[in-house]
């Protein structure tokens, strides 16, 4: 199993632990990730909201490079995924669009190489059974709410999972030995970049999700998007203090949870880089593991 790996800008800064854990976990699962050399930014929502053609062209360059190698792209970041998927779908839908895009990027892209979300690759290509078979340290007793965000499962025509009540991350978490907790905010929007540019709008949106997660009784949140992570983890303190609450809800990339269950050291996965301290959870898991071993 080999994919053209597209980390995207966030994964070399705010989302560095997503990159670290993805690489480690892929290796453990036998998934080969060939990083697209000299990849460029997908344009994110900024290009999408500024110019239609630019939004399609920026990801097309990365797809074209992947296509030269005959590889599908594996994309961890949900935002990069949906923008790249949009390009793939548009190019596939008309020859005229294919021609225009190829002219703008001055490379050939025919729609052969597909954009795949990393979660999709792990759950549906590698498979839950294979992942489960490799679990060394099951996440026993850990209650997890899966937070998919808005871009991973919408629009439904791109989706590999249900747009209202997606299941893939919940099933993955279950395969890791943890307990998935059902909740109603799986696909509520975290406000995206609004949190940076307009926090009076962003923070209430973040707060709603955190409150719902807390109320569900979960120990932590699993996510598949560096922007969601930023908002829920890095801004958890801001959101909490604005509404006079303290959540203390660690947020993990699903790849980090996979790494822990596969027996990879948390530091190697970047878990220590979280803003909301996750060491309590790690300690609890280790203690439970120790008890099981002595028993």
């Amino acid at each position, binding site marked *: 199993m080999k994919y053209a790996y597209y980390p995207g800008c966030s994964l070399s800064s705010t989302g560095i632990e997503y990159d670290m854990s993805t690489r480690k976990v892929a290796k453990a699962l036998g998934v080969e990730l060939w990083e697209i050399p000299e990849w460029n930014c997908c344009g994110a929502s900024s290009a999408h909201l500024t110019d239609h053609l630019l939004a399609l062209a920026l990801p097309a360059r990365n797809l074209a490079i992947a296509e030269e190698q005959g590889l599908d792209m594996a994309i961890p970041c949900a935002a990069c995924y949906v923008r790249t998927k949009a390009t793939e779908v548009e190019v596939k839908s008309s020859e005229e669009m294919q021609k225009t895009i190829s002219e703008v990027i001055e490379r050939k892209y025919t729609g052969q190489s597909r954009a795949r979300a990393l979660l999709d690759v792990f759950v549906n290509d590698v498979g839950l059974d294979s992942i489960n078979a490799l679990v060394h340290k099951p996440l026993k007793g850990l209650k997890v709410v899966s937070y998919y965000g808005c871009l991973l499962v919408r629009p439904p025509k791109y989706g590999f999972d*249900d*747009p*209202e*009540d997606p299941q893939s991350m919940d099933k993955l978490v279950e395969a890791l030995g943890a307990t998935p907790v059902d909740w*109603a905010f799986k696909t509520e929007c975290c406000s995206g970049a609004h949190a940076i540019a307009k926090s009076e709008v962003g923070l209430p949106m973040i707060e709603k999700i955190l409150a719902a997660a807390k*109320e569900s009784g979960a120990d932590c949140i699993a996510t598949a998007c560096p922007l969601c992570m930023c908002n829920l983890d890095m801004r958890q303190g801001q959101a909490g203090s604005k509404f006079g609450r303290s959540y203390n809800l660690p947020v993990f990339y699903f790849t980090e949870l996979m790494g822990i269950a596969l027996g990879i050291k948390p530091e190697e996965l970047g878990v220590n880089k979280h803003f909301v301290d996750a060491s309590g959870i790690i300690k609890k898991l280790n203690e439970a593991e120790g008890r099981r071993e002595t028993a």
Partner: protein
Amino acid sequence: MKRVGVFICHCGSNIAGAVDCEKVAENAKSFPGVAFSTDYKYMCSEPGQELIKKAIKDHKLDRIVVASCSPRMHEPTFRRCLESGGLNAYLLEMANIREHCSWVHPDDKEKATWKATELVRMAVAKVLKNEPLQRSTIPITKRALVIGGGIAGIQAALDIANAGHIVDIVEKEPSIGGKMAQIDKTFPTLDCSACILTPKMVEAANHPNINLITYSEIENVEGYVGNFDVTIRKKARSVDMTLCTGCGTCMQKCPTKVPSEFEMLMTDRRAIYTPFPQAIPNKPVIDRKNCRYFTTGKCRVCEKICPTKAVDYTQEDELVTQRYGAIVVATGFDLFDHSVYGEYGYGKYKDVITGLHFERLINASGPTMGKIKRPSDGKVPKDVVFIKCVGSRDEAKGKAYCSKTCCMYTAKHATLVREKIKDSNVYVFYMDVRTPGKGYDEFYTRTTDQFGAKYIRGRVSKIYEKGDKLIVRGEDTLLGRPVEVEADMVVLATAMVAQPDAAKLAQMVGFSYDQDNFYTEAHPKLAPVETHTAGVFLAGACQGPKDIPESVAQASAAAAKACGLLSKEEMPTEPIVSCVNEAICAGCGMCVPVCPYKALDLKVIQERAHGKTITRKVATVNSGLCQGCGACTVACRSAALNLKHFTNEQILAEVDALCL
């Protein structure tokens, strides 16, 4: 020399708005064989028909072309006109310059006029080749079949029976009564549904002209109007109807509990059961899928307990065939499955229920004895939300149409909640309130004004559970602001949809249905209870969403149509059937399996050739069964089969007129 008369209809502005009718009439004058051509505002009207009759006389016309609407609409009208003008009805040809021309080309008069001219040219070419055809007659079997024993089926059967004809009602459930039996009260009068339905059920059961065939389904239908041969599968009841007294002891002692379909799975019935206490016939059946004896081989409690030894495990399904002159289809509707709405919880929230669940919850003989209690924990709900148009008017996840009844039954439900739970709050999310009907809007006004239900104009976007509450998010579109309700229970007015096996039955009986599997009437205005298949009539919600008064009215209308048919001794048949030219038929038999009406067969003939007698096979057409579809003529490789009135020669004359 043949003399054709051409008559171009304006259809008011329907045709004349897009087609220059005078010019078409003028153009037609030059077509070969045309002796007279004119136009008129309404050709189908009395003066229009007189115009045709007079022209036949004055201009010695011997065949006629009428260019107007679809022949589906007025071909019978103009055929009658020709007959009273002294011509054979089949010397008429119609050019459809409305549906096929003016309605589809409203914006280009020049081209539409050209197209109309060409359509008339083709009709003239064909009518020159038309032959006079004679109708024959067939006898009519004086017995009617009603499929479905809900309120529509019961009403149709009673009306036919009261007119003196024998009627069989075939009902797939163990009891007649249908959906109306599940309903608690009826709008706008709030009278009890059972109180007005059950007397009708008893009347049907006791009527000397009505036979109830319950727990039975239609297996096969052959034949044609006046003589349908219908095979009915009587499912094994496992109870001998002649011995059973309906004492009900078996139902008390049966050890197997099964969620009751009648009670919307909110309480249990037994494996030997009647669907509800007022069932007719009030004799139980054994649900073999769940019966302990049938699943494990042990038990036989009901057999032991039965005082009349009526339980019979050895019964088998029985197939009976009966001939009927007319069929009334009254198979009713089903409810839309709201589990496609992820935003409403995919059907997994217990306290999000449908209107039919609610009917059982407020019914005195329902699972809660008429006390409104929510399914999850039995608590009396205080804040109740109703959501209309769930699955209706929703192209994305449901049906594009309006289900018509939900506005009124939701108003009824809202009223009943406010009446029964004094400190309750009722919120109705709606897009429009549609209450055309006698006393309907007055009822709705009382719901808001006297009973204080809060109507909020907006479609709900999301429902989710929070603790033991349901959070309902909508927009008050009249204020332009998002709103949220913390509800204890949510009732969805789910769409009325066709029965899951609706298409199958239609195909079996042989009539058409629409994209939503509702049965199609022959004409939306002028033939609302007929189907395109002669002798088959429609009643109730199988044809489209309807409330009780409308279903009953349509049932009586269907009955009147059936009675009209059954009151005759015999009826004329359409002479447009296939015929075989035996001289060139190769006897290949290709036509036999192609015929959807089983009208074609092979027969052996003897003939003299070169001084010898030889025998060979040729095709033969049963003109009683042939419906004139023409499928055989297309399959025939030697062109030995021809459909009268649509012969190869006639069709080619049309093609030549257009193309040469």
